[in-house]
């Protein structure tokens, strides 16, 4: 009787055989033209791709307006590149003082750099925690000023891409601990604590983000004692943290449920109490499972920060829209602005999405032998 290992090698050997030679071309063409229906689909797809590509190429390149002002763009029918050139800095930085643009630029560079470093498995260690304690402080100091002789820039002037990054990453940074606590509370055996967590999570998840933003912007000032004012940015940030906490809680709870019961029992058998067994045994396993979905949640937050436009904050989407409404350019470069914004969002989201898929493969340590379909 052949051993399992031998059978596997046999299987592999059979699958790795090259296809018969004479039929290589037919095999390659078959998926495209195998049946009449398939041939029609192929032709339709080719036609659609041809139309899309020529339209995009014509708009972006051949018919594009490369020089001149609003008048030239109005006359032409292609993409208006001068609009992007004229408005690029405003779209990225908003009303941040022009001469100080290097500060948000440096802050964003630091933030993205720290993010890229922590995405590489080789750098995964406890020291990253220190990095992530330092980076937000440095970024905040750069943006706000008041230290090292940097002039103070009030948060009402913050805007554009740095604001979008800030709202989503701070939302995640504070939402994550909140989410873990809520998840632990919801899966707790103590009924009162469980009920409190369930009510919080379900209420926040049951209403749209817009309503939480509204509530934060209208109610938060009323909640505060006299003499304490909460600025608009902080209100929006609070709303996003609450929102993030509820969604992260459900993801983490999924991870907690995926940890086998035997792990709880083994921890109890060793005499570990609730907190120790959570900290040393359960959470490390649960959190590892939920890292890829957390990255996806982060992509969602990054896109959801666009909603702060509705309560009057100048995020990236809103600076783009403000550029479109500029009296000089009004009604001329609408498509250009939106396409540019869409590309920026898509680039970031797609990059993070690919990273999430990479993590999923990398963190898969359950030695799953079942063959993929």
């Amino acid at each position, binding site marked *: 009787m052949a051993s399992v290992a031998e059978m596997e090698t046999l299987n592999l050997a059979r699958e790795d055989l090259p296809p018969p030679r004479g039929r290589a071309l037919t095999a390659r063409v078959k998926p495209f033209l195998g049946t009449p229906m398939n041939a029609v689909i192929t032709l339709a*797809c080719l036609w659609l791709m041809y139309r899309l590509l020529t339209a995009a190429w014509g708009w972006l390149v051949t018919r594009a307006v490369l020089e001149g002002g609003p008048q030239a763009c109005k006359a032409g029918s292609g993409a208006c590149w001068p609009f992007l050139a004229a408005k690029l800095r405003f779209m990225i930085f908003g009303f941040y003082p022009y001469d100080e643009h290097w500060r948000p630029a440096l802050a964003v560079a630091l933030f993205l750099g720290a993010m890229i470093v922590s995405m590489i498995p080789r750098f995964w260690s406890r020291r990253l925690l220190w990095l992530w304690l330092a980076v937000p402080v440095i970024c905040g100091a750069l943006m706000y000023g008041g230290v090292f002789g940097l002039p103070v820039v009030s948060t009402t002037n913050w805007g554009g891409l740095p604001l979008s990054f800030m709202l989503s990453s701070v939302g995640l940074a504070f939402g994550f601990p909140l989410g873990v606590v809520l998840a632990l509370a919801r899966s707790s055996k103590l009924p*009162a604590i469980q009920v409190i967590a369930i009510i919080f999570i379900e209420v926040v998840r*049951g209403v749209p*983000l817009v309503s939480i933003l509204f*509530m934060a912007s209208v109610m938060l000032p009323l909640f505060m004692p006299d003499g304490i004012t909460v600025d608009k940015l902080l209100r929006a940030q609070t709303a996003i943290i609450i929102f993030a906490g509820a969604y992260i809680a459900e993801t983490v709870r999924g991870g907690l449920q995926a940890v086998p019961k035997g792990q709880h029992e083994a921890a109890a058998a060793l005499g570990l109490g609730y907190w120790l067994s959570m900290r040393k045994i359960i959470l490390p396993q649960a959190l590892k499972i939920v890292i890829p979905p957390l990255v996806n949640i982060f992509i969602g937050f990054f896109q959801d920060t666009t909603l702060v*436009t509705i309560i009057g904050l100048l995020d990236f*989407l809103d600076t783009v829209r403000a550029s479109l409404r500029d009296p000089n350019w009004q009604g001329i470069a*609408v498509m250009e602005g939106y396409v540019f914004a869409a590309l920026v969002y898509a680039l970031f989201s797609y990059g993070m999405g690919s990273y999430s898929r990479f993590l999923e493969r990398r963190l898969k340590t359950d030695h799953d032998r079942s063959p993929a379909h």
Partner: protein
Amino acid sequence: MASSASSPVRLLYDVRVRAVLYQVVAVAFVVGVGLYLFGNVSRKLAEQNIATGFAYLSRPAGFVISQSFISYDSSDTYARALLVGIFNTIWVSIFAVTLSTLLGLLVGIARLSRNPLLAFLALIYVEALRNVPLLLYLFLWYALIVAVFPPVREAWQPLPEVFLSNGGLIVPSLRWSPAHTGVLVAVILGIVLGFFTASMLRRRRVASGQSETAWPLILVALLGPPLLAILLLQPDLVVNWPEKGRFRITGGVQVTPEFTALLVGLGLSASAGIAEVVRAGILSVGRGQWEAARAVGLRDRLTMRLVVLPQALRVIVPPLTSSYLSTFKNSSLAIAIGYPDLVMVSNTTMNQTGQAIEGIAIFMLVYLSMSITISLFMNWYNARVALVER
């Protein structure tokens, strides 16, 4: 002496005592924070002389709503205006969910196509929609609609009495009367009756094992009530023809550009998520199931309907539920492009009356209760399709 001093301490190490203690502390904390915030709010409201309560709901609203499915004009009450907003939210959500399900199903199956080109195009569709914020798409579709279609004065007329402009699509409508409502109810009754007849006949067929023609009975159940209602109620057919004025078109039924942009934006964005859900669902059904079905002699279409789809649905329904829920909640982005949904009407109300807390409380409550209703319904459906284990 020593034992009496240590007994409260020892009590603290009792698991049951601790459990009670933790819960008491948690509840006290939540209640304390709640009371503190409530105290602050009521003191500030008293200082600013803002009256609380829902009395304002019965005052006349005084603002116009561009689209409503129940009769409304600006002299109606705030409560009526909010009701119009709720109906608008539900209306656009129903259409968007339908659109996204159909598109998602098609694209999800296209992703699995054996034709690489089709699968590739479907992938591009999904990625393009998933990686760009919904709000941006809403603005983009709205801007495109306004830019592509002519102003009202030069409205296109693809058919006589049908006007297409950047003010929306306007078609002739029936002048609605209670008789029409009666017929509509009868149509719904007919559909429900037809459905029940069909399922009853199917059960009998399965039980008896004999094939019998079912369609005449189903047809009678389907068409009986509406025909009866038309004969009894005699609804009159008065058509509301649209009339073109200098600046706007009056009469008829209007599909506003705001509605269209919101519908397209919500529908397309959700369809990308649903496509992935459908794809994962079909992939989750093992190849052995296809092969076994073929071995039994089922053809492809029957295999799909009787073997693969029932199993795929178990995987599909739970994430589909959350997709529907988020479509419904995302309809609140309507406020950004000016579609008068619940949030936008509430916002106008809050700005006019200053009753912010009440306004927010109302729309949060409405969303919450509707979210719970949707998830209860989908849970019921999920329990029906779920695997029944011994």
